[in-house]
């Protein structure tokens, strides 16, 4: 198990400072441009009752599990 060395810390600190110095970034997809993203076919999980069942079917038979849910996208309203 490798330790995170000082070079990595320094790089992350630098990235963090740069990001902070950027100033407000404007969202590149405007709220009124989200008609495709709001379409139900672009939803990560339109039917939770079915997707959770299917995930269960796989997890019972496979060694691997997890990292399968995604949230967000959509209309971005409110």
């Amino acid at each position, binding site marked *: *198990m490798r330790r995170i060395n000082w070079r990595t810390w320094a790089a992350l600190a630098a990235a963090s400072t740069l*990001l902070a110095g950027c100033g407000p970034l404007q969202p590149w997809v405007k709220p009124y441009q989200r*008609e495709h993203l709001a379409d139900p076919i672009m939803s990560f999980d339109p039917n939770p009752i079915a997707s959770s069942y299917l995930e269960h079917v796989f997890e019972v038979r496979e060694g691997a599990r997890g990292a399968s849910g995604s949230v967000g996208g959509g209309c971005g309203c409110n």
Partner: protein
Amino acid sequence: MHTSTPVKLFAVLLAAILPALPAAGLAGPSSQSADIAPGVSAPAFQLMSSSGKPIALSDLKGQVVLINFWASWCGPCRQEMPILDQLYRSYKAAGFTLIGINVEPNARDADRFLKGTPVSFPILFDPHSQVSKLYQISGMPSTVIIDRSGTVRYVHHGYQPGDEGEYLNQIRALTQDAP
């Protein structure tokens, strides 16, 4: 607790990036208000309306105008429409008018929605997002309330049930100003 390298790396990354987000204007209240500010003169525009005739903002000078930017794919926008209709009918006589600007590139979806949920106030179409850009719309839906002299007075974005109470108060206040 045994945590492996990938977990540690991820946690470090998150710890490094998260604090920077508010500073970069990516999170927090400052990131929300990029719209047009109250106090400025409402930018002029002219758009085609659902009646087939173009309507310009200048046509409505002398009245209190509420502009609602909406889209048929936006849930809260759809929720708000019947309530805006009620508002329009109640205050029309007091020198108030309401226009709904549809921001969709294709009017077909808006037409379909309006067939199911008809409204009595004019609907204008902004398919090329010209007016949305002009008014720096930063949320859906967005509501801009303009006074009789053509100055932007209030800006709202989003819609939660109950917001109409605020609109009501603001409209009442503005319609009571002498024309």
